[in-house]
């Protein structure tokens, strides 16, 4: 993925983080969405290892050895931060207090199914907290390249890999487009600037509902 396409995707996802939200950003790409969020906006960042109110990342030199996020990065507290045990942390997740989570994907399907934790025989480091985030956040956004490194679609009719959670995804942010999971199917809602509609359709492994008229760009 080109660096500017990646930044554009991150920036677009950041626009869906709204004031007052409690948000969990998955390890990897989703964590970087934070760089595009207005720092004056009042939101609460949650981390699975027991933090509400995750502050900016710190270098190892300035770090508190007891304060990492779920991805292992050194982070800082802000005014209003709280710490709690892992049972309380997932109580926040499962009881519906997460307004939004953004996650990565190996595969995501038009029906909202998500596969992002195991590739049988090749990659199975364990499920971590992904299942509960995917199944219980009020909104689930997926950040992914539209295709894998070999050009095969990652957005499919049905996932082929074991599911993280079924019918959990609300919105997909890719380098090419924004798509919403709807009862009618996967709807194309925005297209990346300079990207051709037919290329999006060709890169998608399931039928896309394309609205009439010009698509908003991002």
């Amino acid at each position: 993925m080109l660096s500017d396409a990646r930044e554009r995707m991150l920036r677009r996802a950041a626009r869906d983080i709204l004031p007052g939200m409690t948000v969990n950003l998955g390890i990897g790409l989703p964590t970087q969405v934070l760089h595009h969020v207005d720092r004056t906006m009042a939101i609460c960042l949650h981390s699975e290892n027991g933090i509400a109110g995750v502050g900016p990342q710190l270098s190892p030199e300035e770090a508190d050895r007891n304060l990492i996020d779920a991805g292992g990065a050194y982070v800082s507290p802000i005014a209003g931060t709280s710490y709690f045990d892992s049972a309380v942390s997932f109580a926040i997740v499962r009881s519906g207090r997460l307004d939004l989570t953004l996650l990565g994907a190996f595969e995501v399907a038009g029906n909202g199914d998500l596969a992002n934790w195991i590739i049988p025989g090749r990659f199975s480091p364990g499920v971590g907290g992904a299942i509960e985030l995917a199944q219980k956040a009020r909104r689930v956004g997926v950040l992914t390249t539209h295709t894998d490194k070999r050009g095969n679609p990652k957005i499919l009719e049905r996932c082929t890999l074991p599911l993280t959670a079924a019918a959990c995804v609300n919105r997909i942010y890719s380098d090419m487009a924004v798509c919403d999971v709807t009862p009618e199917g996967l709807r194309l809602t925005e297209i990346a600037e300079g990207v051709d509609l037919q290329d999006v359709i060709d890169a998608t492994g399931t039928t896309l509902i394309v609205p009439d008229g010009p698509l908003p760009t991002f």
Partner: protein
Amino acid sequence: MAMPDKSADIGSAIARIHDGASVMLGGFGVPGTPFCLIEELVRQGPKNLTIIKNDANEMGMGVDWLLENGQVSKLVASHIGLNARAIAMMNDGALSVEFVAQGILAERIRIAGAGLLGFVTDIGMGTPLAEGKQQVSVNGVTGILEPALKADFALVHAETADTFGNLFYAAAARNFNPLMAMAAHCTIAEAETIVDQGRIKPENVHTPGPFVDQLVTLKQLPEVYGVVRR
């Protein structure tokens, strides 16, 4: 970076509570009972409430105000022995009472707050409390399936809160408050003191702010908070 502000006025916070709502009330006896929120609930007067609280307080305070005002159709509690009105209403059929063993009540609330469906326990096996309940075997041991206990609202009392809704409870006033704050669709907290965000040490927060929806400051503490009648 900043955190959201949950500050609200008591009238509009309580106005959300509708006829027929289920309402959890923190407190074990006097400590931790949100008397001011209950007083406002009496003033606004929604009816047919299901009240979930460890006990029925004593005559003339807390839950008893709601009973006297005819707002409660059902009470879920572990005991009501200190409130003669509650006992009389139960015996007259004016009040439906569901007794739950104290620790099982706490756990049913906590399990709801943890987003789970229920739990299995051997507590009460062979006693009247097991009657009519579904039994389940876990690794060869049979227990009672106790369902999660949720509510539409939780009213809780904290000693200190910051504006994000991080709560700190004093001494034995903690009791059911942190559990109920987790288990309701909407949690309304009253606090004796509200401080700026960052003034409660992050390790010392008892209820993390994400569980709190509405935060009400108590301008002055009525005498009921400091009195135990016997």
